[in-house]
Each structure stands twice: as C-alpha cells, then as structure tokens.
C-alpha cells in the first residue's frame, strides 16, 4: 500500500509534464519517497534474473527471426525459420512421439505416485523408511540413472532385464533396440526416476487431511477404497491438478532420456520436440540452425503457455476446495 499512495497523491503536487499522463510522479518525488533504495534492494535480483533468465529469452525470440551461426553477423529472415520448421516432416514425427511419451507418462507416471503415497500413508510402521525408499531414485543423478538403465536394457539374452525375464520363460526383449518398445522403455525409466518427488508432495498433502474425516468415514462403515475415493482424492484435488499440469509441461519438454538412451533412434522413434530443437542447433558441427531451433522453442513455449492458461481456466471451479 505504501507504494500506491504516492501515485494517487501525485497529480496534486507534481508539475505537469508535456506528453505524459497527469498521474505520473516526478523523479524527485520518487527519489524522496525511497524509490532509490527500493531499486537498490531490487537490483541484485533484477541483474540475476535479467542476465540468466530474461536476456536469454529475449535473445532467443530475436534469434528466431534470424539466420546466424553465432560467430558471423546475424541476418534477419522474417518468418523463414518458422516456415522451415513447420514444413519439416520430422516436426510431426517429433510431435507425435512427444504426445506418445506424454500419454504413456500420464498413464503410468501419474497414478503410480498417488497409489504409492496413499499406501505409505496407510502404513503405520517405518513410514520414514518407505518414503526414503520411494524418494531414492530422485537422489540418483539423472545421467547415472540413465546409464544404469541402459545397462539393464541390454537387448542381448545376457542383459539384466532379459536374464530376469528368462527365469520366467520370457524374452529376450529388444527394449531400446526396437522402434515399438523404445519409447515405453524410456517412460519406464522416467517414471522410476521422477515418481519419488511426486510421492513426497502427495504425502505432504495427505498429512494435511484431517484424521477425523477418516474416523467419521470409518464409523459410517467405509472401507479403504471408499475412504480414498470420498475423502483422500477430494482433499488432494488442488495438488492433483497442479501436479497434472506440471507433468504435462515436463513431459512436453522431455530431452534427457531420448538424448542419452537412444539419440532419438531407432529410426526417429524417440525423437521428441526438444531433441529435435537440439538437433537443429547442434547436429551439424559447422554451425547449426539456431534460427530454426529457437523458432521451434518459441512455438513450444507459446503452446505450453496457452495450454496452461486454458487448463487453469477450465479447472478453476474444481480447484477451490
């Protein structure tokens, strides 16, 4: 409120400036009212955000209209980069793959953490141990996790997973080496790697559910499933909606798994949008197509922003609990 009052007071005291709104304060009054110290305190934050967040964003928007190799002078090419990206047949493959990944990740990655969290919260003894075990994969550095799983996914009969499958008379499966199974294999690892974080969020939310609701449900004769359905899920609604959108945004930007596991192969079956962006920029050692890469990045960011806004509008009425 302290910031707002001088704005209202300004018209009475400030001299009129030609061409400016009459509500505008004079710099002198701004300084007198502590504007400088406000700016001074803001400055470190502004510089950090400016240099590391905003500048790259603005630069990439500019670059999406340019042709440049980052060494020589850049040339403005209008919408050429966007046209080039939109007419690249690989874009649709990448989009399809990304949607397929997102769908599989939702199918497995969304309900599993919830089930695990509910189970852990139901356990009376050693809850801490189970939480720690569920969270453990998140602690493993992602690159190490992928390399480990690459080893597990060895498609020869002596591979780790294939050996286990062999014990029950199955396999050997091709895992990453087959165009059909490569993407599900990536999702499996991604789910394993990310579930722990979501489990912890759900556990925290579950702790906030008042115990008397469960007691009341029990008195009414509700079993575990009815308790989950009628008490737990409605109480977690807001968190569930947020984790849903975060998961969609996260999966739309999947890069690490296809990059490290398959490089987009076999035969582009795991080329995702972000990997395509990376390929535009870096696959050619003689200066990649940074314009196309940034153009696609901007389009992806815009699509996700629109999706988020629409999603929150649509679910606004559900989330108020």
């Amino acid at each position, binding site marked *: 409120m302290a910031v707002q009052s001088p704005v209202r007071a300004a018209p009475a005291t400030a001299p009129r400036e030609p061409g400016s709104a009459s509500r505008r304060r004079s710099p002198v009054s701004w300084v007198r009212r502590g504007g400088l110290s406000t700016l001074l305190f803001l400055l470190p934050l502004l510089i950090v955000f400016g240099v590391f967040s905003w500048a790259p964003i603005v630069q990439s928007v500019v670059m999406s209209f340019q042709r440049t190799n980052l060494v020589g002078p850049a040339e403005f090419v209008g919408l050429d980069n966007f046209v080039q990206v939109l007419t690249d047949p690989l874009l649709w493959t990448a989009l399809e793959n990304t949607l397929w990944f997102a769908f599989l990740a939702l199918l497995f990655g969304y309900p599993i953490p919830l089930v695990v969290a509910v189970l852990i919260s139901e356990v009376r003894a050693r809850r801490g141990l189970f939480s720690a075990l569920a969270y453990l994969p998140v602690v493993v550095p992602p690159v190490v996790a992928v390399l480990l799983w690459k080893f597990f996914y060895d498609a020869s009969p002596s591979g780790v997973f294939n050996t286990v499958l062999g014990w029950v008379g199955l396999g050997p499966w091709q895992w990453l080496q087959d165009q059909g199974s490569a993407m599900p294999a990536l999702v499996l690892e991604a789910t394993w790697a990310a579930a722990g974080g979501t489990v912890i969020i759900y556990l925290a939310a579950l702790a906030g559910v008042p115990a008397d609701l469960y007691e009341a449900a029990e008195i009414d004769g509700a079993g575990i499933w009815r308790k989950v359905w009628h008490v737990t899920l409605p109480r977690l609604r807001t968190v569930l909606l947020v984790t849903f959108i975060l998961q969609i945004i996260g999966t739309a930007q999947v890069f690490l798994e296809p990059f490290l596991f398959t490089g987009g192969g076999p035969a582009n079956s795991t080329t995702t949008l972000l990997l395509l962006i990376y390929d535009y920029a870096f696959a050619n050692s*003689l200066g990649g197509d940074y314009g196309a890469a940034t153009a696609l990045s901007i389009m992806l960011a815009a699509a996700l922003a629109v999706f988020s806004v629409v999603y929150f509008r649509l679910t606004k009425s559900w989330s108020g609990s």
Partner: protein
Amino acid sequence: MKSSRIRILTTALVVPFALSACGSSPEDQVGTDGKVVITVAIDAGLEKAAVDAFTKRAEQFEQANPTVDVRTQEYTWTAATFTAQLAGGTVPDVFTVPFTDGRGLIERKQIADVSEQVAKLPYAGALNPNVAKAGQAADGKQWAVPIAAYGQALHYNRTLFRQAGLDPDKPPTTWAEVRTAAKQITERTGQAGYATMTQGNTGGWILTTLDYAFGGRTEKVDGDKAEATIDTPEMAEVLNTLRAMRWQDNSMGANFLYDWAGINQDFAAGRIGMYVSGGGNYGNLVTQNGLKPEDYGVAALPLADKPQAGVLGGGTLAVVSPKIGDRSKDAAVKWIDFYYMGKLTDEQAAVADAKTLAETKQPVGVPTLPVVDRATYDKAQQWTKPYVNIPLAQMKPYTDKMFDQPLLTEPTRSTQDVYKILDTTVQTVLTDQSADVAALLAKADADVQNQIGRS
C-alpha cells in the same frame, strides 16, 4: 505505478544486454612472468599413462620454448558438442577438427589464419597435396595443418576368430566372406559377428564407407551444382547385405544404437567380432578402452570388384582459435609443429616422441596414412622402428594393402547432414524387419537432395 514498472523492466532488460555486448577482440594472454599462455587440446578420457606422456611432451616443449606457458584442456571433437563449444568460445587455443569441417571453418573465419606461420615450417612444401587441400582456403593459403590421415579398415577380434574356428591371419577379403565369418562367430561364440555404428552421424559415415566400398557415391558435385546419389544399386546392395546379416543370419548382435565411442568400447570388451572404422583406431582402443593387444587384428576394407570401388578416407586438422593474438598464434603453430608434426618430419622429435610414448607404455607405430610425402613418411617409420611396441604382425592384413587401395574423400556438401539422414536409414534397416529398402533409399535421396540444395 505502471510507468515505474516499465522503467524497472526496461532497466532489467537493458542491463544484461549491455553486459553481454562486451565482446572480445583477439589478444594474447600473458602470464605475470611475461610468458605467453596457450591452451592446447588433450584427448578427453585418456588413461593416466597417456596423460603423463602428454604432460611430459608439454614440459619438453616449454623447455625448448621458454617464453611459452602451455596449459592443457580436455577436448575431443564430436559433431554434437563442437558447435556448442565453438559458439560458446570454449575450445582450446589449439584444437583438432576432421577434414570435412576444414573448408567451412575457414570460409566462416571460425579459425585463425595462421598461413603465414605455417608457410615458414620447413616441411610446408612437403605436405601430401591431397591431404593439404583439406586445410587450405580457396586461395590456397594453409590455414589448418593436416596432422593425421586415415583410410577406413575392418577391425576384428582375433580371439573371437580363433574361438569361432576362423583363421585370424586370414581375415575376410570380400563382403561375402565378412558375412560368413560373422555368422560363424555368432553361432560359435554368442557375440556379435559384425556390428556397425548407427548414431550421432556415425551411421551415415559408415554407410557411406560401405557405399564407396561397393562402388557407389552419395553425391555428385559438378561446380556449384550437387546431386544426391543415394538411391543407387550399390547402396541398395549395402543395405540388403546388412539386412541379411541382421535378420537372416542374426549375426549383428543386439545393439543397433552404437556411436563411435560405444562401438569401440564393446569391441575392446570382446563383444564384437568385426566392425568398420578408421585404420588408426588401435590407439584409441588401447588408451581409452583397455583393449588387450593380443585380441586385435585389422584388415584392409573389402572392396567390390568394380573400378569405382574405394576406401573412404579422411583425417584430422590441427587448427588455432581465432580469439588469440599474434604472439599466441606463433606459439600455437610452434606447438602444432612440435606435438603433431615434429614426430612426422624431424628425426630428433620423432625419436623423442616415440621414446616418451614407449616409456609410458603408450602405443608407438600405429599405421596411419601419410600427411607428408611418401619419402618423409618412410624415413619417419625408420626413425621410430626401435620403439614400436604394438603387434604389427597382427596388422599386416591392413598394412600390406593400405597404400594400394584407392582413397576417396568424404562427401563434401553438407557432410554431417547427409550422415545424419543416413543414420535413420541404417537404423531402420536394422530395427525393422519389414523395412522397404527401395522406399527408404528414395526417401533418403530426396532428403539429401533437399539438404544439399538448401546449403
């Protein structure tokens, strides 16, 4: 309220740009002791003995050049990381690139013009002209120094050959023999008989190699015009051979997502019977992948009985960063002369290099193609003969033929893009049993044509 927000926002946006606008012009980095400092590339991931050998060479250089302070920086060229490093300015002052990148880097002035310094080197006129071309600007000035040349070869595991009942001294000389041997290796040892790279543009590199070996070419260049020639009977033959080995013989193992590092690793670990890669690969296999020397064999790449059939060759250029000043440039070229070229052209340097390598148990005498004229090359072989510590007899099937095989250069137009397109082609053949080779080739041909036309 609104205007102050806009002001703050403007400041926030302008300040970082002002900061990032501070560019740098070429200048020398001079230490407090007045020595000029240069950073030089050392292969990433070397074993300790190899690092020791390198450090020793750097010390010897500093003794000979007391005004220069050499610092090392890990660097290995890969298509994907190089662009980022170059754009970000994180390449060392002296680094290496493949022949295919030379002309492009020179045209875009992404490397320094050191032609003046190079011209003063005593062997400047004795460079192998075919090889020197890769490092020359359009006007013939030598901006980059060719330091190594290779021709592709067939590497094989002698131990697996023996276990499979094959004669390790008589490796395959035709592709039909490669196929039979691969099948036998898989059947008797359970390991991949023949494997191939498929990822990170290396799939295209090897596919092009096989295309050349079968008598094909991937593009036809006529002046400014370039035409894709992927959809040819030769390339179809290559893909059908691979397909038969993969799906009929099942002799290609279980990994169809190999890149260069990955395939070297698995070969050194004894999981691959045969694969195609540069003839001088022994050094990498030993120093970075722990290959047992007794396992190793290398043969000349089998060529089809056609006059156009040849071996794809390439090489490495030593180049200098455009960001450094004149004193540093002088020092950088001195380093190239000392570390890369001295051992090829000067007896004392060759002996010193071989001695250091031998003392630190690093391979000496790995067969490579000459970057200097044949006479100088032969002399250098003699100088280092007493220090050779590699199983040369096991490389005879290659060394006997390496100078007789016709050497062909890599595709010159959009090389890496062409390779990338072919990556997908070879991956499809190896992971989709019902892949339609004719349709694949038609698509790859159109994609390559599109790519060549654009650049």
